[in-house]
């Protein structure tokens, strides 16, 4: 179970990215976090595993409060948190197998990692997971030889092999075409359900969020402004999340999403560690 309590992040620039977000995710539910660009979605996900250091509030993974942990204990806690990235973040020059096995790095010594000497049960599991994500016989390909969809499958495999207690997924489809996006999200949610892992997924495409989530939360300007089931996300709810409660005046949503994607890239450049 993951729970954040009044989680805050103020960047050194004075920019208040998170103004106290409280959220909990239990069982094996899939929670989609939607919201306009710059709302703080990426920052929120990164504050959970402290890739971005929060400036206030608490994060609980089961009974452990992550913000109180020292470096060594934080690393141990991160072994239980799988993360999937927008730009895949595979080690490009390494093979698919090495990338998948990197999900087990928290359990092996640096020397063993250097010699790629992983325990045989890890290797066994890596083969099984590669088959599950549809990349059987690809283990010796280099990551930079793969297509975008294949890369994100490796990203999923790397996160799942950690046997995490939660999966954090940051805009998994922004670098993919619509059809591949569906396939990747299908796979991600199926694997998560099979392994009983809860998922927190940042996504700016509302329709995709509706297709795959059990529950939707809306983040706007660093605050949680809406929470509910997928069937409850009506026009009014969208107004609250995207327009601060003001009703919109007949603009095409496709155009808006495109603009949102552009804005997001802008934000990524401004926010340290964003992406």
């Amino acid at each position, binding site marked *: 179970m993951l729970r954040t309590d009044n989680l805050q992040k103020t960047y050194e620039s004075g920019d208040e990215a998170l103004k106290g977000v409280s959220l909990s995710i239990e069982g094996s539910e899939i929670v989609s976090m939607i919201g306009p660009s710059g709302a703080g979605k990426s920052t929120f996900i990164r504050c959970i*595993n402290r*890739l971005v250091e929060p400036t206030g509030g608490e994060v609980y993974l089961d009974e452990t409060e992550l913000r109180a942990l020292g470096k060594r204990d934080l*690393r*141990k*806690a*991160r*072994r239980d*948190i799988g*993360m999937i*990235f927008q*730009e895949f*973040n*595979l*080690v*490009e*020059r*390494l093979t698919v197998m*090495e990338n998948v096995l*990197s*999900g*087990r*790095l*928290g359990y092996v010594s*640096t020397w063993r*990692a*250097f010699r790629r000497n992983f325990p045989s049960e890890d290797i066994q599991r890596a083969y099984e997971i590669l088959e599950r994500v549809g990349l059987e016989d690809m283990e010796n390909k280099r990551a930079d030889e793969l297509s975008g969809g294949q890369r994100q499958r490796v990203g999923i495999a*790397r996160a799942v092999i*950690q046997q995490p207690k939660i999966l954090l997924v940051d805009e998994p489809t922004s670098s993919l075409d619509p059809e591949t996006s569906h396939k990747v999200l299908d796979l991600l949610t199926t694997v998560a359900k099979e392994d009983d892992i809860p998922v927190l997924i940042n996504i700016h495409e509302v329709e995709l969020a509706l297709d795959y989530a059990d529950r939707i939360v809306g983040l706007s300007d660093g605050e949680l402004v809406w929470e509910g089931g997928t069937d409850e996300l009506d026009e009014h709810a969208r107004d609250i999340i995207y327009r601060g409660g003001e009703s919109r005046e007949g603009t095409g949503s496709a155009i808006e999403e495109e603009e949102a994607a552009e804005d997001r890239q802008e934000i990524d450049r401004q926010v340290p*560690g964003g*992406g």
Partner: protein
Amino acid sequence: MAADQQTWRRPTAFYNRTVKWLFYIGSVLFVGLLLSRTGVSPGRFWQGILFGIDLVGQMVPPTATETQFNRMMEMLGESVAMSMLATVLGVLISIPFGFLAAENLVPKPVYYLNRSIIMVSRSLHSLIVAIIFVKAFGLGVVAGVLTLSFKTIGYWSKLFAEDLEDIDRGQMEAIEATGGSRLHTIVYGVVPQVIPRAIGLTVYRWDINIRQSTIIGIVGAGGIGTVILAAFDKYQYQYASTILLAIVAVVMVGEAISAITRRRVE
């Protein structure tokens, strides 16, 4: 369409056009001053050219006695051996310096300390370094290897550190997120990104070290330089030109090997 009376002039990079012309005139006067103060004159230059032609005349055809030839080959071998040893030793020492001089991987004080060390290595010419090592370790190959190793640090670490600063942070971040330690992140997330460049830099530095190894003998740090200086001192110009040709050949081979290797890995 009627011709337009408007004119346009390219804006000058200087403050204004008067400054521009003053700068040009000043430059010409300054070079003239330098010429007169250093005694460089057309007459002096012409005199040198005549000596030069005479010297080249005495250098052809390149010849060497059997003893001279054997000595040359032996010392050329020594130069190449020195360059290889120095590359291996120098790069091994450079690796930690390189990592510690990458701004994105270490704290600021460590970064500045290592940048300074690298700067010292870069600022001294290899002949000066060679003189110091010859004073410390005596004449011969040891001083030469140490000189070239020292110079390798400045070159290799600096360029390696710059490559490290250019790596994709996302790949590091992914390793950090799995619970990897700092060392895991370097071994798994950083090193694979810079390996090809490291190999390329090493081969290129070896190529530079070959060239350097032919000259440091002049101050007694081993290699072919010793022989070429002796040949000139004894007015054995034909032997000297043989050595020069041999050096050119060796350097060309080294350069070719380095170019092919770099093309394959980078």
